[in-house]
C-alpha cells in the first residue's frame, strides 16, 4: 500500500511538473481538488493493477473462520469481515472489479451516446426525431429496474453482460448533451469552411464537430464513471450484481453491513473507497473541463 501511495504521489508531482509549462495544465491544477483527485485515482488504479502484489492475502481466503471480525491491526490492515476474509485484500481486488466495470460501462455508454447524439444533431430531420424519441423512451425507464429485471430474467448473468447492460442503459444523457453541442456547432462557419474544403460528413463530424464537443463529453464521462460505479455497487449490494465470492465494493458492503455494530470496518472501508473514487472522478472531471477548453485562454 505504501508503494502505491508513493507511486501515486510521484505521478501527481511528475504530472504537475510536466504540464505546468502549458496553459491547460495550469488551468487543470488551479483546481484545489484536482491534485488530490489525481492522487486518489492513481492510487486505486495502481492497487487494482498490482493487486496480487499489494494484497497480503488472496481475496477469498478465510483466515480464521473461528474468529471472524478481527478489528484493524498491523496484521489485518482494515480488519477482517464476518467470513474472516482480510478486508484490505478484498478492497484491493474489489478495485479491479468496481473500477473496471465503471470504466468499461462508461466507455460503452460514451461511445454509443456520442455516436447517436452526433448523428442526430448533424443530420437532423427524421433521423434526429427518431433517435431523440428513442432517447426519451430510454430516459423514461427507471434504470435500476430495467437492470434488476434483466438480472432476474437471466440467472447467473455473466459479468461482461452486466457491464454491457449498465453501459447500454447509461448513454441517453450523453447523447442529448452531444446532440445539443452538435446542433450548435454544425452551424458554425468553420464547419461550412470544412465542407468547402471537400470534407465528407464523417470527416466533418469526427474532426471538426466532435473535438469541439470534447470538453462536455469528457466531463460527462468522468462524472458518468462514478455513476456507473454507484449503480454497480447498488446492484451488488442488492445481491443482483457481481456474485458474492468475487469481491466488488458493493457486495463487500452487503457482506458487512448487518455486522456494523460489532465490525464497522468490513462495510465502512469499501464504502469509503467508493466515496473517495467517485469524489475524485468528479474533481478530475471538473478540472478537465476547465483545462480542455482552449477558448478559455489563461490570462
Amino acid at each position, binding site marked *: 500500500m505504501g508503494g502505491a501511495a508513493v507511486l501515486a504521489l510521484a505521478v501527481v508531482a511528475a504530472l504537475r511538473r510536466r504540464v505546468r509549462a502549458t496553459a491547460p495544465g495550469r488551468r487543470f491544477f488551479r483546481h484545489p481538488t484536482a491534485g488530490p483527485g489525481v492522487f486518489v485515482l492513481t492510487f486505486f488504479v495502481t492497487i487494482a493493477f498490482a493487486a496480487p502484489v499489494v494484497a497480503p492475502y488472496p481475496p477469498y481466503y478465510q483466515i480464521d473462520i473461528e474468529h471472524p471480525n478481527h478489528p484493524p491491526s498491523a496484521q489485518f490492515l482494515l480488519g477482517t469481515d464476518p467470513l474472516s476474509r482480510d478486508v484490505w485484500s478484498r478492497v484491493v481486488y474489489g478495485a479491479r472489479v468496481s473500477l473496471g466495470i465503471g470504466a468499461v460501462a462508461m466507455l460503452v455508454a460514451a461511445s454509443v451516446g456520442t455516436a447517436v447524439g452526433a448523428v442526430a444533431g448533424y443530420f437532423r430531420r427524421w433521423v434526429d426525431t427518431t433517435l431523440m424519441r428513442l432517447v426519451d423512451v430510454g430516459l423514461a425507464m427507471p434504470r435500476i429496474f430495467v437492470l434488476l429485471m434483466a438480472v432476474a430474467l437471466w440467472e447467473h448473468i455473466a459479468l461482461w453482460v452486466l457491464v454491457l447492460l449498465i453501459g447500454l442503459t447509461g448513454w441517453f444523457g450523453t447523447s442529448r448533451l452531444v446532440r445539443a453541442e452538435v446542433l450548435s456547432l454544425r452551424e*458554425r*462557419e468553420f464547419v461550412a469552411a470544412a465542407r468547402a474544403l471537400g470534407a465528407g460528413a464523417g470527416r466533418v463530424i469526427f474532426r471538426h464537430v466532435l473535438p469541439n464537443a470534447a470538453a462536455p463529453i469528457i466531463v460527462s464521462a468522468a462524472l458518468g464513471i462514478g455513476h456507473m460505479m454507484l449503480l454497480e455497487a447498488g446492484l451488488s449490494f442488492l445481491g443482483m450484481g457481481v456474485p458474492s465470492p468475487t469481491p466488488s465494493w458493493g457486495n463487500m458492503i452487503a457482506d458487512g453491513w448487518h455486522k456494523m455494530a460489532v465490525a464497522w470496518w468490513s462495510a465502512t472501508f469499501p464504502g469509503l473507497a467508493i466515496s473517495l473514487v467517485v469524489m475524485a472522478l468528479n474533481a478530475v472531471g471538473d478540472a478537465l473541463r476547465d483545462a480542455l477548453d482552449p477558448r478559455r485562454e489563461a490570462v
Partner: protein
Amino acid sequence: MTEPLLRVRDLKTYFVTEQGSGTARAVDGVSFEVQPGETLGIVGESGCGKTVTSLSILRLIPEPPGHIRPGSFIEFEGRNLLTLEPRDLRAIRGNQIAMIFQEPMTSLNPVFTVGDQIAEAAIVHQRLSHRAARTRAIEMLRLVGIPDPEERVDHYPHQMSGGMRQRVMIAMALVCHPKLLIADEPTTALDVTIQAQILELLDRLQAELGMAVILITHDLGVVAGSADRVVVMYAGQVVEQAPTAALFARPLHPYTEGLLASVPRLDAPPAREHGRLHGIPGQVPAATAWPEGCRFHPRCPYAWDRCRAEAPPLLDAGGGAEPGTHTVRCWLLTDPRRRTPHP
C-alpha cells in the same frame, strides 16, 4: 473568347420560410461566366444574394430550408455541379474550387492548430502523409506572408490576429492550387490597412498560381482595384455586367449609378446635397416579396410606368462596346431620353 472556367446559368436558389410567409427567392435567375485566370467582382448591398450565389456554386446551401431550383445550371470545366454525386462534388470542393469566408474569426476551427487546418485539404485530396502535409502547410504560410512559419504552424487560431487568420484562411483555400477561388467579402472584417495587404496578397497569388477569382464584396473600391469584370447584383438578379473600366466610366443601371455616387471621394467633394454623403434611398426589399416589374423601381429616381409593370431583361449597352460584354437590366436603354439629371 476562350471556353469559360465556370458558367452559371439561370441560377435560382430559394428558401422556404417556416412561418409560411412564402418563399424567399434569394437568388432568382442569375447568369454569369468566369474565364480562366480572371477576377470577377460581384457587388451589391447586403441581401442582394451575393453570398447565396457563391454558396450555391459549391452547393453549400443548407437544405432544407434552401434549395436550388431545377433548371438552374452551374457548369465548371464542362461538368454540371448541380447534378454531381456528393463524392465527385467533394473531390471538386477545396481542390478545384476553394472558398474564403467572410469571418476569419469564426471560420477557423478553434481546437486545431492552423497547420493542421491548412494541411487538411492536402490530406483529403492529395492523400499526403502527415509529415508531407505539415511541410506543405509551412510552405503555404510562407507563401501568404506569415513570419516564422515553422513556429506559427503549431499555433491555434486564437493566438493570431484577424489579418493573420485571414491569411491562414487563404493558405487553407490555396493549398491544392485550385483553379477557382471564391472570396466572399474577404476583407470586410478587417482594418483598412490590413484590407489593402490582403487584397495585394490575393492579387499576387492569383498572378503566381494563375487561378480565377470570384471576389464578392459590397465595396466598390475593392472591385476597382482588383477585378477585371464586375457583376452588379440587386434583389437576387444581375442588373449590370461590364468590364471594370467600362462600368466605372459609364455606369448604366441606376443602381450602379447610385452605388458609385455613394462612394465617398477625397478628390471631388460632393457638390450635391450640400456636402453630405450620397445614399440610395430605401432598402433592399424582402426576398419573399420582390416588387413587381423592375425590382429596383421603388428606389429608382427615373422609374416610370413601364418599370412598374414590366420586368426588364438584360439589354446590351451598345455605345461601342462589343455585344455581350456590357449588359444592363434597365428599360432606360430603350428610352435614353428619360435619363434626366436626378430630380
